[in-house]
């Protein structure tokens, strides 16, 4: 730095290369983080999915267990596991029940709030949104307590009406009981998204419709819903993705009932394998398959809806 004749060319060189270097410098942190915390772990999980643990002898003592190459055997085991296939079927049914109900309610509430002359609008909006702010584990505990007849507040009320509380944890009803927690927690958020989208519809459209003599219902059906279709698609896709990953609710409810087994949902099965059965290799293989299915599903959902809603725009 003391020799000005050396500083000068260096400065010149830097100005020349700066435009080429700058983008790389800027993008480096993101790339490094992406590689470190996404690509490497995925790569490691992929590696683990082709490994297995092999013991010799009784399997006790040092060096009795080694990690060896397993080929596709982990994948084959999990794919042919009856518990996994039934959990897969269960999660699809869960999604089919939950998503339409939740989005239907969210849309209904959004339309009601958007209609004119609704009293207590701000309060209602907050009240509907509030369950979303309750962590799912706490929500599940809360509902779990309400579902168990002996600690639930409902049986005494029902008894006054001459009714008894049904068992909410039978094999088939349990799915609805879990879905109910999802609807309760998720409706508010989707309602806000749809409502925000409704607010951005130009007011002239409604004016024109009213001049043409359209009723509120007609406006809702013919103008509002088509105008917010992109938002509906978006919330729909995200909801499907999220419901297929359901974990917190059933995992929290599982100790309360015989019906919800440790492998009740696909992600519970992953957890079960990794932590209960101490088989991280099988868990990695299962995770890979779930990741691929999720990727294909969400990609095709988005493509199909893009074509239909946005007309390829």
């Amino acid at each position, binding site marked *: 730095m003391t020799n000005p004749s050396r500083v000068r060319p260096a400065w010149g060189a830097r100005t020349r290369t700066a435009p080429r270097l700058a983008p790389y410098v800027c993008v480096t942190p993101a790339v490094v983080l992406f590689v470190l915390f996404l690509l490497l772990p*995925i790569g490691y999980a992929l590696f683990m999915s082709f490994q297995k643990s092999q013991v010799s002898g009784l399997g006790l003592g040092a060096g009795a267990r080694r990690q060896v190459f397993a080929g596709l055997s982990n994948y084959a085991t999990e794919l042919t596991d009856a518990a996994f296939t039934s959990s897969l079927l269960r999660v699809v049914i869960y999604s089919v029940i939950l998503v339409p109900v939740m989005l239907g309610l969210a849309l209904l509430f959004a339309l009601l709030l958007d209609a004119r002359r609704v009293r207590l609008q701000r309060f209602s909006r907050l009240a509907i949104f509030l369950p979303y702010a309750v962590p799912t584990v706490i929500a599940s505990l809360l509902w779990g307590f309400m579902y168990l007849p002996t600690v639930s507040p409902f049986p005494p009320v029902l008894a006054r009406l001459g009714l008894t509380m049904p068992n909410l944890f039978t094999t088939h009803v349990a799915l609805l009981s879990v879905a109910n927690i999802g609807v309760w927690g998720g409706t508010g958020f989707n309602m806000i998204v749809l409502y925000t989208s409704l607010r951005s519809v130009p007011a002239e459209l409604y004016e024109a419709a009213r001049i043409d003599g359209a009723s509120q219902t007609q406006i809702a059906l013919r103008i509002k819903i088509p105008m917010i279709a992109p938002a509906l698609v978006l919330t729909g896709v995200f909801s499907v993705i999220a419901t297929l990953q359901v974990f917190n609710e059933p995992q929290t409810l*599982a100790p309360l009932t015989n019906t919800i087994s440790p492998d009740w949902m696909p992600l519970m099965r992953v957890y079960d394998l990794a932590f209960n059965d101490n088989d991280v290799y099988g868990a990695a293989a299962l995770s890979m398959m779930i*990741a691929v299915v999720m990727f294909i599903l969400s990609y095709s959902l988005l493509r199909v809806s893009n074509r239909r809603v946005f007309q390829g725009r």
Partner: protein
Amino acid sequence: MKLIPHGHRAPASSPRGRRRRPHPVSITGAVAGAALAALVAAGCSSSSSTPASGGSSSASSSGKVTLTFWTWVPNMDKIVAIWNKAHPGIQVQVQSQSGGDAELTKLLTAAKAGNPPDLAQVEYQVLPTLVSNNYLADISKYDAGLKGDFPAGNWNQVTLGTSALYGVPQDAAPMALFYRADEFKRYGLTVPATWAQFAADAAKLHSEAPGVYLGTFSSADPGEFAGLTQQAGAQWWSASGSNWTVGIDDAASQKVASYWQSLVAGGGVDNQPQWTAAWDKGMNDGKYIAWVSDIWAPSDFPTTAPGGAGKWVMTQLPQWTSGSGVVGNWGGSSTAVMAASKNQQAAAQFAAWLNTAPAATAALVSQGGIYPADSAAESAITSPPAYFSNEPDFWTLGKQYAAEAAKVTWGPDVNVAYTEFTTAFGSAAASKGSFLSPLAQIQSTVLNDMKKSGFTVAAS
């Protein structure tokens, strides 16, 4: 959920619920979300939820050693304080766990990640699992001299019948029957000495008071069922040479399964899992008037049924043959040193102190509410637990049951068997169907799991 929480329940809000928020409205993209799942599955993310879990100990410049210790014995920090005061050079730091099952899950993951504590409370039935993964240190060169302090049965569980030593026995866990003396009187039931009488009581109770039960068959408690089968003579695992034999579906286990199936079907025994809020309420308000449990139950009763002090009474587990005097084991644990610990000698020294020093075992009894395995400590306890102050001979009975406990060998994948138990018996209990098919299901799952890992294994 599965492995026995040694009577100390894993709260439903245990760490396993704490994860990403898979809400129906999550804005996480599919790929990122699935990748996260993969991450978790691969165990890359440190699963330890204890903020201070620095893993292995660290020796500071002054030569002071700090050991981390995972345990779920209540008030262990107070017991450890006695040691810390006397041993300024070896400081032990207690990291409290919610229960046996939750701790095992964390321990397996932390050990795989190379970041376990120095010491851990380990239930006897999972010792082989940890040993077979090479996660436990052989402390025979430090603590082998303690052999004479413990009953042979307990010592055999921590050596796995080898010359190595994988832990110091902490508590013995013989099973016992607890019943509500006042309710038994009210319904005119006799305190059952045999399982036949227990079944007769269940039938009588059901006809007199449907909705009141002699306890419940809990699919959440494989260890309880395993203990009952031990009493009947079952050996779920046995080893000879380099071969394992699995006898989960043997005649003794089938006898026990059929017995409980008929009780559940008859309505005298409930089919709901234990350790839930509903179960607590039932234990407290007289819906459940008997509990097949264990010597450690006094540490659970005050929270489970606070209103029942002085009403619950412990008696011997009903027998298959009148007057035979055999009971099973449910839980029970040891203090083990992890292989990854850098201070195994100090840790082994602490483990020995905790379970044999009179000051420590006395505190374990009075503060931790556990029944010590150490023979000398066992004789030293006299006054009954506060909850059972109506039963002055409580510990005399305890000593008798401990001597009657069946010998047991645990296999290297008890965790797999126990998880499968929850699944298989969960649906069987819910439907009040056959209890024999879940037993066969557990047997085949365990056999497959062991074969997959390369064990030489056969069915008995």
